[in-house]
Each structure stands twice: as structure tokens, then as C-alpha cells.
């Protein structure tokens, strides 16, 4: 028994090492006082100072944050509405339509959005096209989370609210929204992280003038993986991690709130 358990722990440890070692290397080398990612020389904040002075990088960061905020906001509103609709009207087709972009290979979504923007909408690629593209793949995630939250709920709660004098809007405001709020917040945080580190779809829909953090990092490593890339990757990682932990916190509330 004890040996089997030790074996399991060892296997788990190896898997975690495999997953997180590359990330750890990036983090460690972002503090390395050397131009090369070869050997540890000494600790420095230098690459973070370089980063803060890099106008292209800062511009890309602002773009990323604006797009992530906009996309998560719009996707949360639309996704919540979709989740409610799917749940309430027992729809068959809408769930597939909403959830497909989540499962669709990103490259497909990227190419088709590109063609759609250029050939159908005659849109100049830029911030707006990236924003729309990000909204399309975030909506599905929010809808899934909201719907899952609603799935375990007693339908008669909403009827009871109507019955006790609440208008449909008051039912939403006083009963539905408070009950699904953890899922809505988790969906918004997930959308934010999905948007801020999306590369493939952004690559196709950004055009030439606009850059986001992932695009900027990619253009930098075409030359070499500089410590500056390590530094910006570390910051992005930190942000994503914070968002996921926050979302998980609300997600646990989802679980606890049941029953």
C-alpha cells in the first residue's frame, strides 16, 4: 500500500515537473544578469527596467489589456444571456452554436474570421477586429460556466419570485443574478485570461498596425530569446495565474452554493 502510494506521488511529481519546469526556467532567467540564457550569473531587475522603457512592448501591453477588458466585458454580458437562454428555453441548436467556437481549432477560427472581416465586412484590421474575434471565442466559455451554475437549480425559485410580485426584470435583478454571480465573475476572469494570451486568432485578425503582448513576444523571439522576453513572459504568467486563482475562488463558491 505504502509503496504504491509513494509511486503515485513520484509519478505526480514528474508530471508537475514536466509541466512547470519550462515555466520556472523562464521566470528564473528573467532575473539572470546575462544576455544569454545559458548559465546563471547573478540576480538583477535589469530586464524589467528594459521592459518598462520599451515603448513597443508597453504599447502592446496597453492594447492587450484594453482588448482583454473589452472582450471579457462584452463576452460576459452576451455569454450570460446565452447561458440563461439555453437553460430556460431548453434550446437544442443555440448551445451548439455558442459552444462550437470553444471547441473549434483556433487556426480555423482565425482564418475564417480574417476572411469574414476582409471580404464580407471590408473592415480594416486593427483593434476592433481583434476585439470582435476575442469576443466570439470568449462568449462560449462564459455561457458554459453560467449554464452549469443554473443546471443544479430549482426552477420553481424563479416562478416563486414572479408569484410573490417580482416583474421579470426584478426576478433577474433580485434572484437570478445574485445566484449566478459567482459563475458570471468566473466567466469574466476566464475570458480575460483567454483574451490576454491568445496568439493564433490575434495573429490572423490584428493586421499590420496593431500588436498585442503575445504578438510582440513572438516578433522578439524571431531574433533570439532575450531576457526581456523572459521578463515579459513572467509578468504575463503572473497576471494569468492571479486571474485563474481568482476565478477558481469564485468557482468554489459555485460548488459550495449548491443544494
Amino acid at each position, binding site marked *: 500500500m505504502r509503496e504504491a502510494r509513494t509511486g503515485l506521488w513520484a509519478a505526480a511529481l514528474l508530471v508537475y515537473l514536466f509541466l512547470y519546469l519550462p515555466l520556472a526556467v523562464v521566470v528564473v532567467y528573467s532575473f539572470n544578469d546575462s544576455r544569454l540564457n545559458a548559465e546563471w550569473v547573478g540576480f538583477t531587475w535589469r530586464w524589467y527596467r528594459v521592459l518598462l522603457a520599451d515603448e513597443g512592448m508597453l504599447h502592446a501591453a496597453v492594447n492587450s489589456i484594453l482588448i482583454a477588458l473589452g472582450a471579457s466585458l462584452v463576452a460576459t454580458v452576451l455569454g450570460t444571456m446565452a447561458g440563461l437562454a439555453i437553460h430556460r428555453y431548453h434550446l437544442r441548436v443555440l448551445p451548439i452554436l455558442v459552444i462550437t467556437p470553444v471547441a473549434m481549432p483556433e487556426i480555423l477560427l482565425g482564418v475564417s474570421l480574417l476572411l469574414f472581416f476582409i471580404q464580407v465586412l471590408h473592415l480594416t484590421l486593427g483593434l476592433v477586429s481583434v476585439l470582435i474575434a476575442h469576443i466570439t471565442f470568449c462568449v462560449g466559455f462564459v455561457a458554459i460556466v453560467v449554464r452549469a451554475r443554473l443546471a443544479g437549480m430549482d426552477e420553481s425559485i424563479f416562478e416563486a419570485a*414572479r408569484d410573490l*410580485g417580482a416583474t421579470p426584470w426584478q426576478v433577474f435583478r433580485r*434572484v437570478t443574478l445574485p445566484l449566478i454571480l459567482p459563475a458570471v465573475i468566473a466567466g469574466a476572469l476566464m475570458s480575460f485570461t483567454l483574451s490576454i494570451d491568445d496568439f493564433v486568432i490575434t495573429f490572423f485578425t490584428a493586421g499590420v498596425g496593431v500588436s498585442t503582448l503575445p504578438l510582440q513576444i513572438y516578433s522578439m523571439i524571431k531574433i533570439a530569446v532575450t531576457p526581456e522576453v523572459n521578463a515579459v513572459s513572467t509578468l504575463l504568467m503572473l497576471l494569468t495565474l492571479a486571474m485563474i486563482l481568482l476565478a477558481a475562488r469564485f468557482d468554489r463558491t459555485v460548488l459550495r452554493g449548491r443544494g
Partner: protein
Amino acid sequence: MALLELRHLTRRFGGIAAVDDVSLGIEAGEFFTLLGPSGCGKTTILRMVAGFDLPDGGAILLDGHSLADIPPEKRPLHTVFQSYALFPHLSVADNVGFPLRMARVPAAEARRRVADMLDTVHLADKADAYPHELSGGQKQRVALARGLVGKPRLLLLDEPLGALDHKLRSAMQSELIALQRNVGITFIFVTHSQPEALALSHRIAVMNAGRIEQLGTPAEIYGHPRNRFVADFIGDINLFDAEIVERAQGTLQFAVAGLGHIVAPTVDSPGRRGVFAIRPEQVHIIAADAPTELPNRFPGTLREFLYVGDVTTYQVELDSGVRIQALLPNAAPARPQLAAGARVAVAWAGDAGLFLHD
């Protein structure tokens, strides 16, 4: 004028009439029960009165005014749901206060009314608790308080005692009767449990397949069921296919399948076919050779008996092969000591039982 009137109310689901041309009137202050097996249409009627479902035909009138164009939140009635439907994110006090808040009752008055209501249902100490911290019976009382606090004209109760265990249910039945008397609000109660309906109601509508089979007081429904369905659904009863043979000495001779001739009361004429129904408590069990003045007497063998504390029910197989059920209180002084397989006779009075049309 009736407080609530249903006129030719009809609701179809996919061509099948769940509620089929139902008309009835419910008086102010009444405890009215819709009783029937599941799928008989009783809950559909309740949902249409509450406004969650719309009739395909007919009308629902409250104080003589049609409710057709009035959404659920504007109807002066509240519902107590089978699942209680308490708001999980609100405390007991906020749950009970919800309808007052929706009606924009001033906060101070709302607080006072919620406190009074919680007193009435013995939950004053649970005001700050959340629904998941309550027992089934407590949730039940919160749901009742929430339904009553807004002083609706009507309270609709959809199998509200269905989820409670037997002892709690009996206690809640007594509380419900007292509560309804105290608040003076008209109750429409939906249940499939006939003892519950008999115990609680002023009047009962027995429903089957979307129609009302009989409407009357509990005593009328139990003592004088109008047809085979009602007789069979309300309480235990022995039913035999029968035909009236002749009229003699103010009573009628029946030919009953498997029994032969019996004497029983009826207003119908010879030649009429139907069902002879007799309650187990009207059937006596006597010793096989004992003399009796009762006109209906048949020998048989005791097959089974079921002792349930206060009474015992006996299954007797008559010599003709027909089974009949008898019920005796265990406190009865002349209760025969019987074992399965014993030779006995069953007997009943000439004015016992009923002749029903199919």
C-alpha cells in the same frame, strides 16, 4: 359570488386534455382541495390560476374579473411550492419579506409584519438563518409564512406536505388547519393523498383524467362516492359488479358477481347494471356457525390479516372464490381471535354499502 371561479377551463398538451372543461367555484375563507392521482390535471389548474400556464379554453375569474391578461406578479395570490422554492441567497427574514419588498411596503412596517409572521409559524429564532440551515419542516413553515405575509386573497398550495415524513406531516396538517382559520385566507390545496384531503378540507374536488369526478365535503365524498373511480380512490373499499334484480320490502335484491343475491339500498330500478361498493368497516366477521340477523351472510376462509395497531384488516376468501376485505378496530370487545385458514363468515346490514354507476 364565489371568490374564485373556473369556467369551462381547458388545457391541452399535444392534443391530450390535461384539464378538460372544468367548472367550479371556491368561496372566500374556504379550504378547498383538488385531489387526484398524478397526471389528473390538478397541478395544471393550480399553475393556470397562478399564471404560470395559460388556458386553451375557458376562463378564471377572481371576484368576477378575468385573470386572463394579468401576469403572475400582479395576481393577488401566492403559491407554496412542493419544493418550497426558498431563495437560497436570502435569510429566512428576507425570504419572508420578499413579497412585501416587491409590493413596496415601507421598511419598518415590513419588518414588523415579517416578525409577526415568523412568530405565527414558530420560527422567530430562525430569522437570520439561511434556507440550507433549516430542516424540512422549518423550510415548509418559511414557505408558508412567505406565502401568507402579503395577505393574498388566495393561497395556492402544491403538495406542500409531500416531502415531509409521516409524523411531521400529521403535525403540519394540524398547524395548517389552525393557520388557515387564524389568517382567514382562502386556501386551494393540491394533493394526491386522500387522507390528507379528508383531514384538511372544507370541500374536495376529486379529479381524474382532467375532469372533476365529484365535488363535495369530505363526508359526502367518503360516504357517498358518486362512481367507481371516487369510491376506489377515496379510502379502501370492496367493489363488485352488480345488477339490480328486484325491488322488495323497500330494499333491492341484487345479483352480484361471485356473491349471489344480496340486499342493499338504492334508488335505481331493476335491470340496472353497476357496481356494489361496501367499506371494509361495514363488513362484520363472525364465527362460521354463528347466527346473525344481518341479511347478507356468506361463509368463507380467512386468508390474511394485517395488524396495523389501531385496527386489523382481514382478507376473507368466500366459498364462491371472491375475496372481501373487512376491518375491525382492535379495541372492539367482540373481536374474534382468528388465524389464517380459519372458517368464518362475513355479514353486513341491508342498508350498508352503495350501488354505483360505472
